[in-house]
């Protein structure tokens, strides 16, 4: 028993050390203080603990919690009582306690008092040690978090001093620097950013790696210097703590009673990380367990495995059996005693010399029997189960197939007690991003102006990555890969121009490449994960040759000034705008990795090689004429109407650009030279050309070396990975986003030079509009241009219609639209995330008008959101479609295969994602969750365009209604009939509610898998929570029961380990029942021959130790190591999973058959010796000894019959147990002369060892007892083999035969399933969308109507 404990300790140590390595993320795994805010009412007032507020502060702040968190269950003082209290919640332990107490009653005492306590003490100690270690690791985590340092303003010292997290109080001022973790929820009062913006990374909170902007409270952002807490004289009133991450309401009341509203934009959440911002100051509003992050965790959920619950019911049966047996004993004793009216020799009188009345004696005997037969309730079962689970988990953790070399991580089993639940999963709830996908968005295709560019080279590149992935490529592979790229580039003929330089640049490139490659290798390790979306797979886009050629013509045209065909230039114009839109229409933040998180400021732009401003202006004028926009050319006056500051900055930019004319000239020359010949004969990727341009310039001008390869030096951080992918794609075409500030965007455009766009507005993405827009003033044309990108479903409706005037271009537009739509459909079919890119040119007058309205909307107080929405919609009309993009969120390796296998195993898979519907459905298709011929029902609560794609798709809002009590059942009934359910736009809480619903209402075994903190509550609620080591922190992993590196590992985890763990534990539990019933019945039968007096024919020590020592290890080994079917076969035949899923190994009937067998065996084991020794001079213990010995053999050999595979460990343990038994009984028999108050087994074993009858009795007993079980097993394997038995048989075949057999098996089942399908699926082929108008009632009726729809039953 010591070994598993040591092992467990080791495991915990390792866990702890892992946490240490990952860096400290606040653990909010548990929280019991939800209700703490009850006394405070609806609002909370936050007052700084400063100056004149002091009194009030003291009054108010007492009610608030400080920032200390405690997730542990015990403290040092209360460990013993509380642990005991918790342990005695287990009925079994209570039962044992009861027995111990009972044994202290002299009248019914059956055992020696000490002996009776032995099992209970053993059980309690083992469990207590386990709990203690578990809690200790939590305590260490808490301590680590509580003692993190942060800078808190101290009134005494008048400055910010280091303070532990736990000492932070509500009302404190906290100053954080870049990359620091926010210790508590606070309102942002100052940011070093000039615009009052602070970027935070919420990865540890909601799982999104992108940066979020937070705004300094209005009124404070104008301050130039840092806020002085001493002068802060306002009070903050805000909501009471709640768990809504997306909402924060409150206001700041200044001393002059002015109120400034607060929103979630002003709130920094605990657990997030400050990024890109030098310093921020905030005032704490919620602390500790009241922070939103902590409240968002639905608290710890004690998970008890399904098997354990079932075991408990069966134990109740055993209790019933026990009571029955004891009653028999009591009644029997009463009757027996009533036969003797007088005192006889063997009826011991009471001290007063009289006999006790039979009824009282019977009553006493009842309790005596309960003590005597206590073993019937499997005493060592609980401990054994715990140990077996430890062993199983040890083996799972050591499975090399779960090892992911890239991240050097393997599976972590964090929950020790639910391993067998893995074998019974019926529902899997999966997160999407990062779980099914890699969370790496890759630009795949685009369509511009109706022309598709399929980026084959890029596809090839991706394939090469795939290969590297599959090879688990080490750094050597990366090296090899990059050298391959280099060799390709070396084939470029431009190398001849200036070879030495070229080589230099190549070296540099390859250097950076391999560096990136290395980062990719280690980049998945969480500690380096702070560079978001930056693996080369996402950043390196190889341009499409055709597109690049066309793109190159932009500059060449601008050079020779000759008019090409209008078609070509129109297309060129489209391409230019398209890439500009990609680069501008986003909220990407640019930083330089060498100085992490430093924003690219304008200052560096001056050194960029550019053409003269005049030239660019000419080019764009030329292009804009062809753009057929009706707006007149802007005049200078209009442009001067801009806000003065931006105008000045623009001027300064231009001034700086002009500062290096010499450089410009050389650059231009080089670029021209280069672009002249490149379009004709370059089939290879032209990235190098661009580098060459830069290199040439650098060489000629010899100014500085920094720009040698500016390309890889920029680092983009985007709100969504899609954006990043688009920006990277644009960059590949030399349309490089150089910097972004709230009012300016600078783009380095294809050798033309930097263009600085003045950003007028950003209309951010929202789920209603499904698009975002950026309004900029074009630096060249000086017109207001709107770039919009969004989902095709909405964008296509917003395009300029042809009705106005039908000239050539309009027709052209229509054609483009049609073709683009075709391409979009194609992309969607391929599982790509599609986006439409469009633009619109506005006249200044139009813009001014819109601006007016918009300003009104912004300033209105009532339904501001709606007005803003309206305003945005007004702007985004009459767009000109530029093109579309297809982005791939690459599925993780092996995901479709895994999902298919899991479905074959009879598991229903739901996808719960916060992502938008289109993406979710696309991914669902890609990973074969939905199949093309599935009918898809879409449940929606808005009256929007009904989605006709393909299972059940439901979005967050609808979920809200659906999760209403009245609708739950209908919804579940509906989902039961769908083979896949996709829930999009689901909040973390909704996810968990959904999981709980399925779990509770359908009584199904659920597994939730996710990688981000947004999945935490779902993971905690599910029966089994699986976390994926993602790029998004450790939150999910910390909350999970099992943590794997890849989704595909689920396959083996469930199909193999789940099956094994379940069958092993089931068999072991059944065996335990058998063992105990068989053994206890021996005692029971003896009661019939000793006047039901409760005599045991075995010595008490041996009786107790029989279960604790002699027969406890073999079943444990059996439970840990038994292997009914090999892993290979299990993986190939997922159907086998259904055996364990349906609990076929542990049906109620199995339990009763086991008991029946136990009864039979005990009868044999008792009566063979009984009849043998009947009437002889045998004494009690000499009679008990052969029985006991035979029972040992029977019990151990029974195990061998049940064993599916016998390794040397089994042999050693079984032989060891037998030897141990004999050694013990011999030693005990030789030494105990007075150990026992009653007669003792002195020298009995020794005596028997020399007696041939003893051996003959044991032999016969064992044979006769085991014969039926053996016969049953033989006949079962022959006459009615279960699938598992058949699969077991496969293991013996040669590989070829095996393959053949498996193929045949699969075919069989396919046929079966088809037949089933045919009968079940009806005839309807209509696609139905269930719609509600936001009212639960409406949904209710509709759902009821449509529930009768035929459904496609999933195969297997």
């Amino acid at each position: 028993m010591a070994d598993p404990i040591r092992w467990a300790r080791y495991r915990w140590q390792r866990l702890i050390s892992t946490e240490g390595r990952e860096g400290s993320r606040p653990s909010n795994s548990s929280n019991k203080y939800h209700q703490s805010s009850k006394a405070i009412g609806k609002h909370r007032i936050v007052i700084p603990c400063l100056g004149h507020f002091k009194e009030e502060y003291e009054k108010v702040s007492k009610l608030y919690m400080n920032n200390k968190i405690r997730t542990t269950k015990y403290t040092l003082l209360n460990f013993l009582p509380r642990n005991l209290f918790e342990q005695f919640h287990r009925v079994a332990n209570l039962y044992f306690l009861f027995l111990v107490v009972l044994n202290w009653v002299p009248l019914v005492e059956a055992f020696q008092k000490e002996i009776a306590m032995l099992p209970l003490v053993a059980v309690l100690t083992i469990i207590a040690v386990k709990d203690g270690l578990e809690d200790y690791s939590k305590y260490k985590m808490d301590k680590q978090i509580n003692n993190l340092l942060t800078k808190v303003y101290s009134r005494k010292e008048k400055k910010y001093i280091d303070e532990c997290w736990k000492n932070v109080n509500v009302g404190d001022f906290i100053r954080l620097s870049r990359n620091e973790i926010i210790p508590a929820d606070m309102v942002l009062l100052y940011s070093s950013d000039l615009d009052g913006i602070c970027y935070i990374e919420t990865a540890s909170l909601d799982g999104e790696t992108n940066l979020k902007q937070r705004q300094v409270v209005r009124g404070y952002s104008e301050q130039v210097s840092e806020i002085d807490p001493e002068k802060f004289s306002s009070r903050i009133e805000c909501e009471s703590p709640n768990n809504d991450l997306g909402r924060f309401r409150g206001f700041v009341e200044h001393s002059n009673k002015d109120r400034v509203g607060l929103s979630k934009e002003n709130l920094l959440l605990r657990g997030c990380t400050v990024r890109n911002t030098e310093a921020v100051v905030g005032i704490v509003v919620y602390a500790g367990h009241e922070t939103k992050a902590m409240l968002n965790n639905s608290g710890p959920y004690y998970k008890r495995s399904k098997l354990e619950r079932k075991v408990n019911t069966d134990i109740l049966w055993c209790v019933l059996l026990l009571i029955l047996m004891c009653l028999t004993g009591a009644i029997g004793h009463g009757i027996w005693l009533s036969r003797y009216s007088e005192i006889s020799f063997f009826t011991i009188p009471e001290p007063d010399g009289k006999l006790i009345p039979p009824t009282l004696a019977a009553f006493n005997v009842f309790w005596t029997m309960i003590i005597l037969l206590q073993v019937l309730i499997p005493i060592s079962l609980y401990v054994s189960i715990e140990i077996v689970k430890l062993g199983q988990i040890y083996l799972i953790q050591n499975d090399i197939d779960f090892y992911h070399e890239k991240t050097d991580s393997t599976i972590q089993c964090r929950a020790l007690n639910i391993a067998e639940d893995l074998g019974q999963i019926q529902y899997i709830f999966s997160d999407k991003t990062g779980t099914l996908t890699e969370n790496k968005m890759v630009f795949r295709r685009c369509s511009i102006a109706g022309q598709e560019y399929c980026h084959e080279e890029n596809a090839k590149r991706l394939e090469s990555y795939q290969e590297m992935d599959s090879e688990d490529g080490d750094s050597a592979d990366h090296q090899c890969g990059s050298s391959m790229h280099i060799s390709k580039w070396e084939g470029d003929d431009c190398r001849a121009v200036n070879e030495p330089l070229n080589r230099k640049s190549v070296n540099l490139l390859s250097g950076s490449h391999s560096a990136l490659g290395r980062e990719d290798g280690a980049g998945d390790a969480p500690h380096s994960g702070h560079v978001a979306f930056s693996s080369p797979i996402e950043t390196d886009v190889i341009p499409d040759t055709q597109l690049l050629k066309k793109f190159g013509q932009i500059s060449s045209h601008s050079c020779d000034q000759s008019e090409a065909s209008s078609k070509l230039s129109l297309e060129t114009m489209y391409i230019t705008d398209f890439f500009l839109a990609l680069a501008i229409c986003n909220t990407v933040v640019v930083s330089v990795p060498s100085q992490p998180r430093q924003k690219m400021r304008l200052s560096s732009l001056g050194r960029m090689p550019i053409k003269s401003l005049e030239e660019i202006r000419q080019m764009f004028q030329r292009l804009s004429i062809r753009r057929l926009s009706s707006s007149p050319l802007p005049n200078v006056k209009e442009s001067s109407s801009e806000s003065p500051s931006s105008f000045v900055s623009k001027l300064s930019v231009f001034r700086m650009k002009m500062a290096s004319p010499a450089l410009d000239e050389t650059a231009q020359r080089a670029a021209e030279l280069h672009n002249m010949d490149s379009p004709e004969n370059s089939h290879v990727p032209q990235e190098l050309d661009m580098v060459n341009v830069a290199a040439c310039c650098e060489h000629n001008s010899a100014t500085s070396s920094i720009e040698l390869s500016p390309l890889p030096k920029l680092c983009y951080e985007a709100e969504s990975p899609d954006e990043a992918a688009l920006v990277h794609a644009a960059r590949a075409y030399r349309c490089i986003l150089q910097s972004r500030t709230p009012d300016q965007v600078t783009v380095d455009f294809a050798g033309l030079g930097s263009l600085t766009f003045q950003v007028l507005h950003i209309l951010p993405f929202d789920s209603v509009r499904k698009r975002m827009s950026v309004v900029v003033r074009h630096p060249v044309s000086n017109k207001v241009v709107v770039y919009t990108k969004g989902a095709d479903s909405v964008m296509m409706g917003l395009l300029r219609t042809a009705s106005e005037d039908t000239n050539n271009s309009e027709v052209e537009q229509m054609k483009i639209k049609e073709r683009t739509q075709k391409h979009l459909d194609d992309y969607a079919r391929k599982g790509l995330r599609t986006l439409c890119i469009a633009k619109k040119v506005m006249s200044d007058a139009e813009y001014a008008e819109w601006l007016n309205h918009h300003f009104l909307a912004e300033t209105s107080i009532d339904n501001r959101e709606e007005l803003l929405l309206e305003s945005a919609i007004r702007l985004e009309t009459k767009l000109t479609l530029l093109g579309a993009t297809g982005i791939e969120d690459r599925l993780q390796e092996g995901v479709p295969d895994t999902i298919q296998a899991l479905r074959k195993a009879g598991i229903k898979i739901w996808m719960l994602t916060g992502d938008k519907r289109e993406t979710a459905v696309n991914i669902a298709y890609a990973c074969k969750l939905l199949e093309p011929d599935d009918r898809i029902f879409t449940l929606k609560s808005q009256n929007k365009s009904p989605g006709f794609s393909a299972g059940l798709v439901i979005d967050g809002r609808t979920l809200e209604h659906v999760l209403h009590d009245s609708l739950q059942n209908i919804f579940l009934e509906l989902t039961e009939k769908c083979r896949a359910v996709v829930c999009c736009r689901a909040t973390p809480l909704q996810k968990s509610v959904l999981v709980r619903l399925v779990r509770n209402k359908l009584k199904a075994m659920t597994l939730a898998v996710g990688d981000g903190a947004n999945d935490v509550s779902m993971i905690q609620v599910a029966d089994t929570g699986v976390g994926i080591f993602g790029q998004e922190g450790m939150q999910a992993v910390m909350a999970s029961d099992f943590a794997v590196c890849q989704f595909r590992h689920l396959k083996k985890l469930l199909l193999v380990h789940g099956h094994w763990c379940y069958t092993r534990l089931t068999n072991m539990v059944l065996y335990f029942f058998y063992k105990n019933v068989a053994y206890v019945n021996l005692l029971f039968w003896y009661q019939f021959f000793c006047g039901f007096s409760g005599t045991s024919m075995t010595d008490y020590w041996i009786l107790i130790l029989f279960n604790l020592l002699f027969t406890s290890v073999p079943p444990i080994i059996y439970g840990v190591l038994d292997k009914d079917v090999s892993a290979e076969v299990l993986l190939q035949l997922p159907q086998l999973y259904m055996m364990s899923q349906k609990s076929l190994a542990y049906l109620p009937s199995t339990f009763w058959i086991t008991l029946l067998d136990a009864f039979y065996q005990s009868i044999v084991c008792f009566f063979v010796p009984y009849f043998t020794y009947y009437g002889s001079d045998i004494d009690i213990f000499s009679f008990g000894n052969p029985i006991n010995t035979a029972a040992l053999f029977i019990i151990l050999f029974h195990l061998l019959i049940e064993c599916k595979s016998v390794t040397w460990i089994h042999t050693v343990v079984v032989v060891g147990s037998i030897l141990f038994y004999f050694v013990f009984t011999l030693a005990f028999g030789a030494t105990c002369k007075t150990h026992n108050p009653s007669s003792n087994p002195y020298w009995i074993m020794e005596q028997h060892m020399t007696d041939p009858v003893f051996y003959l009795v044991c032999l016969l007993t064992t044979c006769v007892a085991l014969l039926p079980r053996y016969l049953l097993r033989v006949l079962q394997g022959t006459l009615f083999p279960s699938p598992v038995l058949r699969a077991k048989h496969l293991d013996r075949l040669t590989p070829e035969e095996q393959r053949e057999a498996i193929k045949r098996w699969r075919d069989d089942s396919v046929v079966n399933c088809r037949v089933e399908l045919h009968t079940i699926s009806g005839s309807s082929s209509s696609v139905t969308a269930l719609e509600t108008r936001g009212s639960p009632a409406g949904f209710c009726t509709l759902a009821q109507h449509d529930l009768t729809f035929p459904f496609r039953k999933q195969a297997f």
Partner: protein
Amino acid sequence: MKNKMSFLQQEGEACPSRCPDNSAFRQQRLPAWKPQFTITAVLSTFFLTGMFCLSVGVCLILSANSIREIQIDYSDKCSDCSKLRENSSNWNKECLCSVNFTLKEDILGDVFMYYGLQNFYQNHRRYAISRSDAQLLGQNVNNSYCAPFTTYQNGTPMAPCGAIANSMFNDTFDLFYNLNSSVTQVPLLKTGNSWWTDKNVKFRNPKSYNLSSAFAGTSRPPYWQKPVYLLDEEDERNNGYINDDFIIWMRVSAFATFRNLYRRVRRIRQFADGLPAGNYTFHISYNFPVTKFKARKHVILSTVVWSGGSNPFLGIAYVISGTAATLAGFVITAIHLKLRKRKTYFQK
């Protein structure tokens, strides 16, 4: 800790630190014997078991048949005495009774003489624990398990204490061989009947210069006629706690019907080969009252073989189970042959 970890990580770059061992045990690929129910294995199991059981059974039956045993129930034959004993006030009145029987053939070999009791529940729990092993080892301990036979009301402890000792069987038997009207007493061995370990280790008299002083201050159990140090008046070494009859009685019997070894026939003179055929008489000193609890008393003469006593059960059981196993083997053969023709064996 962090430093340490990163250091380890660097070191372990060649061999990743967390990669599990690729050992057979950890990967659960230990070479395993997978018991398969192949037809040869199954059939050989059944037939071999069957054959073995049959042969052992036959041997056992044969050896059990060689046992000679004679059992005489004297509860009825000594009804006068039993009536006398019903009244406990007559406890010190001697009652003798003799039982005649005839041996039709010789009983050869070692002959053991048992007394048998029927319906005497020595295995009753509270009876069976009513003893003090420590006291019987010669230690002076007061044991609560003996209650209520621990001390007399005046505080004198009982030696030996407890219900078992108190109820010790105290009938005595003498066996007489009547040959041609001359009566010879069959020589019987009093000692050596108990286990050697019991006699020499488990039961010890309290240490003193003589037995009566060793038991000074104690008193005999209430049902006893003599104090414990006078159990065998002829042999000083067979007295006190180490008296063979006492030791044997203290070995609590497993069943309500049991026998205890009383004497062995001493193989001298005409009894050198055992008991010759003829008429015998038991002279029984009837002391042990059993009528109150409807028990019966026997006296038994028996020989013993390697396979135990006269009980033929084991041999019969072996024969039966051997037959069953063989039959099962035939049934399986039949099933196998039938299924093999249908080609549905194991696999569809």
